[in-house]
């Protein structure tokens, strides 16, 4: 459409893995100095494509040309040399290193053999100031929050002189105002003449930032649109991604019953130094009710969930139906019918190096269909895993592959399927659809809603405020370990919630 130069051109890219074709005949043209979004469902092949462009994996067929010349990338350093930088979905940072060490690693300024810390500090501050990315180079990364870490990732890329930035689902972990900050940064970068490739499945965001959008479905490019010249809606894009009509994402109806399923009184969790991370909170959830907790990550959500599951020690009282479970073990709680979708799926929900069907047993190992008496029953567990894979649309070649082979969204679907099995009475869920694409997201919502109809009580923590508002019957806003406000999902907007979460609008 314009004569301006192409920063990246991919022609006929194919990539096959055992049992799966990740990319088939991908064609992509990215104009220099634009923000180009690539959208597609989980497992559509976006991440694989970007890994190929960044030299982490090699395409089986096809050509990559950068600024008009054909290149072959054998490793990320080749890509870096051609001016390509990648901001990964899971941050690639060493927690025990300082910001400076993380940024310069691999291309350190040297003075003889000595690493020139003074020069590095100066360069980083320079780049940071130019692009409005404030960081302190000498703090340890382990002390930083999500937004800061992402800024470091972007700095890492800029430090290497990248002219083409790949951002892999950068907004998945951010709260609304952080997303705004990121987009401002991206617009600045564009002004500086940089090219940004932006991978996402959040279509509203894509429409607000992208100059051009390419849609990938089932490993292949199905079309490109220009949101400036063509009139496209998020719904149009979603239908291109999924390939058919979408289910509507809200079906609110009052299903709250009288029975109180979970009653929490004066719950507190303390950090090592004695500081309260969760500060004397009380609430209850009735059967058929979904209570949402809104809050910026790190305000005590994870600790509340862990305390309710008996993983973290806490003071206060927790009652499940008529039983006081304050001092009961995690296993006991699970056996009572409490399902748990944790915040960090790799740490708490999966054994990455075990097959899917063994992961199906995890946390449910004392119950059917996974065991009878003291014996495990792999056959029925496998059959049930197949059921989950089908019902929750887990994209996998078989149930014998390792959990680590699945993409993040598909891992999440498996976890949700597992935790919704065995008719739980209470579901404690953190970000149930994190990393999951629109189609599957709607399916997970439907599963939760149907179970709620049948009397499931849900405690929902989510960074996706639309999800929180769309699903919850009640929303509580958590700030520094305390509930600071209640919100009615029928009337509240994501902006209002965002304000309350940061404590900016105390009066609200």
């Amino acid at each position: 459409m314009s004569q301006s130069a192409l920063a990246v051109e991919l022609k006929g890219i194919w990539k096959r893995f055992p049992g799966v074709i990740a990319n088939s005949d991908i064609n992509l043209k990215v104009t220099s100095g634009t923000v180009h979004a690539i959208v597609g469902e989980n497992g559509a092949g976006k991440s694989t494509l970007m890994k190929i462009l960044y030299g982490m994996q090699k395409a089986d067929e096809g050509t990559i040309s950068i600024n008009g010349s054909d290149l072959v990338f054998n490793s990320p350093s080749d890509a870096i040399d051609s001016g390509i930088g990648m901001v990964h979905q899971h941050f690639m940072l060493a927690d025990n290193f300082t910001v400076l060490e993380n940024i310069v690693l691999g291309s350190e300024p040297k003075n003889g053999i000595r690493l020139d810390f003074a020069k590095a500090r100066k360069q980083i501050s320079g780049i940071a100031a130019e692009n409005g990315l404030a960081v302190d180079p000498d703090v340890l990364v382990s002390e930083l929050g999500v937004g800061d870490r992402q800024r470091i990732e972007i700095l890492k890329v800029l430090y290497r002189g990248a002219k083409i930035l790949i951002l892999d689902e950068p907004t998945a972990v951010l709260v609304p105002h952080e997303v705004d900050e990121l987009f401002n940064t991206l617009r600045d970068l564009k002004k500086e003449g940089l090219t940004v490739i932006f991978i996402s499945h959040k279509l509203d965001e894509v429409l607000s930032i992208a100059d051009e959008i390419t849609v990938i479905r089932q490993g292949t490019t199905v079309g490109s649109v220009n949101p400036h010249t063509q009139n496209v809606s998020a719904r149009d894009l979603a239908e291109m991604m999924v390939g058919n009509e979408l289910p509507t994402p809200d079906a609110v109806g009052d299903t709250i019953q009288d029975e109180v399923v979970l009653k929490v009184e004066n719950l507190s969790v303390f950090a090592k130094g004695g500081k309260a991370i969760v500060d004397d909170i009380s609430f209850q959830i009735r059967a058929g009710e979904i209570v949402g907790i809104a809050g910026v990550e790190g305000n005590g959500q994870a600790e509340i969930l862990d305390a309710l599951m008996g993983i973290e020690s806490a003071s206060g009282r927790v009652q499940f139906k008529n039983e006081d479970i304050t001092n009961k073990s995690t296993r006991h709680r699970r056996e009572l019918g409490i399902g748990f979708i944790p915040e960090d799926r790799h740490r708490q929900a999966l054994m990455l190096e075990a097959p899917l069907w063994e992961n199906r047993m995890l946390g449910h190992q004392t119950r059917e269909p996974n065991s009878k008496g003291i014996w495990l029953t792999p056959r029925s567990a496998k059959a049930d895993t197949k059921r989950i894979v089908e019902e929750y649309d887990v994209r996998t070649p078989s149930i014998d592959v390792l959990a680590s082979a699945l993409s993040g969204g598909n891992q999440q679907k498996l976890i949700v399927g597992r935790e919704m099995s065995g008719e739980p009475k209470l579901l404690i869920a953190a970000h149930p659809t994190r990393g999951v694409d629109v189609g599957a997201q709607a399916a997970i919502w439907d599963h939760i809603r149907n179970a709620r109809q049948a009397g499931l009580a849900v405690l929902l923590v989510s960074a996706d405020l639309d999800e929180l508002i769309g699903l919850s019957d009640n929303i509580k806003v958590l700030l520094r370990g305390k509930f600071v406000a209640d919100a009615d999902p029928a009337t509240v907007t994501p902006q209002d919630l965002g304000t309350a979460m940061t404590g900016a609008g105390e009066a609200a």
Partner: protein
Amino acid sequence: MTYLKSRRFIGAAFTAITMLSITRTITGNGDLTSTVTIAQALVFASPIALAGLAGIWAERAGVINIGLEGMMILGTFGAGWAGWQWGVWAGVLAGVIFGAIGGLLLAVAAVTFGVDQIIAGTAINLLALGLTKFLAILLFTNAPGGGQAQSPPIKGEIPTFTIDSIVGPLTTLHEQGIFFISDLAGIVAGLFYNLSLLTIITFLLFVMTSYLLWKTAFGLRLRSAGENPWAADSLGVKVVQFKYAAVVFSGMLAGLGGAYLSIASTIYRNGNTAGRGFIGLATMIFGDWRPGGTAAGALMFGYIDTLRLIDTGNQNVKGLILLGAIILFAIGGIMLRRARRNSAIGFLILGSVMIGAYFSATSFPPEVAQVAPYITTLLVLATASQNLRPPAADGVPYRKGDHH
């Protein structure tokens, strides 16, 4: 930063000397801080320190090296055999090379094939033990001065240095028995008495390691392989090469430690390492995977070992018991100030028991001292483990291209 570090170092040294001095004054046992004791402690500490340093190199690159003991054994054998054949420096070289072979074996198993690192290391320990016993029988049985379990004497000696102008007056000062001053004099004199060139090399290796791993780009890359190899890979760091380099160098250092042992006892003997590889590993953990702390840990082990071995009339062990009690009381006091009451009470009770033992018994069996280093390590690990910062990806198998 450096200012703070040197202040901490001086503070720690001051505290240690004060405690030794108190113990020496109460027991009236001048041996505790004598020139000879300290000089010998350096000899005992060096092989352990080298093993600990070897551990730092491997684990900073993310490979747990349980095989240190085995690599040390290979080093003792290499030094005994080559030292007997071609002299002591050939022995040092062979010890280093044999250790490097052990390191290479671990690298192939753990880095290339992703074998569980604990199992690979243990296999190397068993292999080294069996192989050296077998080779000893094969090579040394009929050699003059050798036997089934030991090599003939190593030819030649490593040069040692004594600076008389320092040692003489300071030793005299030590014999005066003045609180603190005499003890400091004895300790300083010990550093310049019969100081082996190998000990100096060990010291230089520690300095080199601190500089290389923490001040250079090479070190940053090597450590990144132990902190987050996936991130390092994404930035073009050749993770596998760094891991190989680190583990092989780790083997070389452990081998040098083994060579030191053989040379100090002038022969190779089966079982000469006596678990020093594992103790080295413990000093590395004690030292929070850093050279300074590791050296301090090794000195502690070397010192206790020395007191046990030069013990006349069973008085040194008694002194150690008192020293232990004083240390326990000191830690108990610190815990009390940090409001960790339960740990404080534990330490104070333990300290009281030791004080009681000190005053009620006239002598202790030397075995008590033999277990002392192990008990110390356990205590350190039990109290300090929460503050330790091991490399984040230590022991995690890494495969290129894997996302994490």
